[in-house]
């Protein structure tokens, strides 16, 4: 068994930022474990720009953003394993790692979960029909086109208007495919508004809200899909069914935090986020195991992943020096209009960044933090959108002497 102070599972945006931040805090004995053959995670295939505007006030592409952190890891000589998969972790923080050289066990004082998320597939949303080739999730298509140089189809229908789907619409179009349409089940788009503008509007790609795919046809290859309108309850209106010839169906229908390992360690998950239930330092219900990035909550902007990872590194450092002493234990109550709030509980009453998403788009809204009936903080928004995560910081003085905390949208 090899002893380590900090083991970070995943060498993507979250893991890299956490590693660099831990080293900046003086933690020497760090190991990043990455299952792919290069560091960088999903950023490697996100060749579009728009990364880093918050953190670096500059628009980078994904590979450039990742490289900034990889360079730091190399420069600071932070240890990492590639082509290595963690197959088990215990609540005692023992990790089993497998790679070409065999099985190894590590005992960590602290673990940072940074495994990211995966895509929902056709099976997850149960589209009826045959099972031909030509059905891809947007991220898989992105990997094939941007990393492996495989073109995936010629006539494409995209279901779901998540950001990766929109980015892929533009990419496929510029690589010579015809994008017939983007269908979205909800009455509003799921991606960032800027992506509807620069990926769809710029190329006259039609977007149909309140529409879905109800059938897939084709034996060897996709030959057509059937699209249909849905009513305000999301129920298919059969009279609107219409066949659309195409050879490819791309799915951009949501992301799921990848928490199989977290479950093995006995960590309690939040059914609203799909990630670990954490305190304000990202510490899970198993002491010493922290989570950040998309494994904790699905982010829309990588800058926030980096910021979250840097913040939890503070917690890891405090934990290792036994300074992480709970002062209280307050479960955050989720009020009207919000889908989730993170952290789910606060224990130290230090400065805390709360992040959350609204349930549906709205105009002229206020986010209110309340201790019973006393308003602790209020913030107004011209617009709110479920696609855009909201982050609000409460200072330790604002949080001092609270007994209860409720967040709501008014």
């Amino acid at each position, binding site marked *: 068994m090899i002893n380590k102070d900090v083991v970070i599972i995943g060498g993507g945006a979250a893991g890299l930022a956490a590693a660099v931040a831990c080293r900046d805090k003086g933690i020497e004995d760090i190991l990043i474990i990455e299952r792919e053959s290069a560091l960088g995670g999903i950023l490697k295939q996100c060749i579009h720009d728009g990364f880093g505007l918050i953190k670096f006030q500059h628009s980078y592409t994904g590979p*450039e953003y990742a490289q900034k952190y990889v360079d730091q890891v190399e420069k600071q000589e932070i240890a990492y394993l590639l082509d290595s998969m963690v197959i088990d972790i215990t609540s005692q923080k023992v990790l089993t790692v497998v790679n070409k050289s065999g099985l190894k066990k590590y005992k960590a004082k602290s673990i940072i979960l940074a495994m990211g998320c995966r895509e929902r597939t056709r099976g997850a949303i149960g589209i009826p029909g045959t099972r031909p080739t030509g059905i891809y999730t947007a991220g898989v298509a992105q990997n094939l086109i941007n990393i*492996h140089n495989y073109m995936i189809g010629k006539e494409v229908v995209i279901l779901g208007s998540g950001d990766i789907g929109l980015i892929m619409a533009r990419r496929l179009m510029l690589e010579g495919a015809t994008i017939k349409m983007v269908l979205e089940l909800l009455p509003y788009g799921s991606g960032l508004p*800027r992506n509807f*503008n*620069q990926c769809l509007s*710029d190329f006259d790609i039609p977007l149909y809200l309140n529409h879905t795919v109800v059938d897939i046809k084709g034996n060897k290859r996709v030959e057509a899909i059937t699209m249909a309108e849905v009513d305000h309850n999301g129920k298919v209106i059969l009279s609107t069914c219409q066949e659309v010839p195409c050879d490819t169906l791309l799915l951009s229908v949501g992301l799921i935090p990848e928490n199989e390992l977290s479950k093995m360690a006995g960590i309690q998950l939040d059914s609203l986020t799909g990630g670990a239930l954490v305190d304000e330092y990202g510490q899970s219900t198993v002491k010493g195991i922290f989570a950040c990035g998309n494994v904790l909550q699905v982010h829309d902007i990588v800058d926030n992943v980096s910021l979250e990872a840097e913040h939890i590194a503070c917690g890891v450092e405090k934990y290792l020096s036994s300074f992480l002493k709970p002062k209280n234990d307050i479960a955050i109550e989720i009020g009207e209009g919000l889908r989730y709030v993170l952290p789910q509980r606060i224990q130290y009453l230090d400065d805390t960044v709360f992040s959350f998403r609204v349930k549906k788009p709205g105009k002229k809204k206020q986010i209110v933090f309340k201790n019973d009936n006393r308003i602790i903080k209020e913030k107004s928004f*011209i617009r709110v959108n479920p696609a855009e995560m909201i982050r609000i910081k409460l200072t330790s003085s604002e949080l001092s002497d609270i007994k209860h905390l409720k967040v709501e949208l008014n």
Partner: protein
Amino acid sequence: MKKEFICIVCPNSCRITAEYNEQQIKHIEGAQCKKGEEFIKNEIKNPLRTFVGSVKCRNGDYQLVSVKTNKPIPKKYIKQVAQKTHELVVEAPVEIGQVIISDVLGQHADLVATRKVRKKVL
């Protein structure tokens, strides 16, 4: 005329309303920053976009090197730049920022690499 734009400069995605006619922009409202106002002025006169794509790479640890224009170029040239990238093959190694095509289509922007590609170890 009056039109609402969605700014693409940053993830805030500001909805910016502009009142303008063929000669001049009369009023811009809703931009949270100066860059947003600048974006709208361009959007009305000559919309600009950053091109992103990839170019084939020989003998590298990646088969493709991702590229971008180092400055936004007029939107109407985006498809032509994409066409250019399909015709090119570069040789590894490639560094981030390396110029792949200088002054692409005479639009005062270089097409630069955004991925580090090492020479493939055989």
